[in-house]
């Protein structure tokens, strides 16, 4: 399973767009990129998943360049409630393996 590298922390202000970049140089051909959000003392919550190019849902966008060695989670117009830890994971979604490897994540702090 590919290892990921993310910034340890980021600060932002309400209303701003936040971009969190994840590096995954050893990503395999069958690997998907998944982002989870976690609030203190709660389970991680699925945000978005993608394989290549761009994926958008009601919460976020995920940008993946052609070489797939990195990805960027984009949160538009963050609010105080977006303060959380964000985890980037890569893995073979079709391999029927549930062993997700979490790093230490990116701690996002949103200020008023």
């Amino acid at each position: 399973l590919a290892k990921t590298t993310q910034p340890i922390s980021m600060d932002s202000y309400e209303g701003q767009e936040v971009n969190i970049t994840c590096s995954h140089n050893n990503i395999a051909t069958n690997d998907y990129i998944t982002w989870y959000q976690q609030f203190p003392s709660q389970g991680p919550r699925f945000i978005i998943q993608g394989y290549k190019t761009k994926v958008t849902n009601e919460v976020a966008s995920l940008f993946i360049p052609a070489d797939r060695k990195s990805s960027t989670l984009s949160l538009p117009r963050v609010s105080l409630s977006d303060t959380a830890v964000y985890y980037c994971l890569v893995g073979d979604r079709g391999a029927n393996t549930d062993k997700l490897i979490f790093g230490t994540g990116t701690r996002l702090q949103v200020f008023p």
Partner: protein
Amino acid sequence: DAGVTQSPTHLIKTRGQQVTLRCSPKSGHDTVSWYQQALGQGPQFIFQYYEEEERQRGNFPDRFSGHQFPNYSSELNVNALLLGDSALYLCASRSIAGGADATQYFGPGTRLLVL
């Protein structure tokens, strides 16, 4: 549609005791995984259960064991508790059929404190 549920929410035990944590998967899901999350760290995979059998295991000692029932619910058992077992224990479920819904969904966790 109920999501993943876990019980109890909090638990306090003393060293050497045994503990059982419970998980009910999201409706329609048939595989359950357990994770341990120490304070300030990301979740660490313990094991996965499918068809009432342990299918995958992370780097955890035999003191950690589990069970899956015919209704897909699961238990995590930890024997001979150590102070270092204090953590948030998370249960995640998904459908083994995979495809577009292969994403794992996590429960709220059980906070275990070992004194």
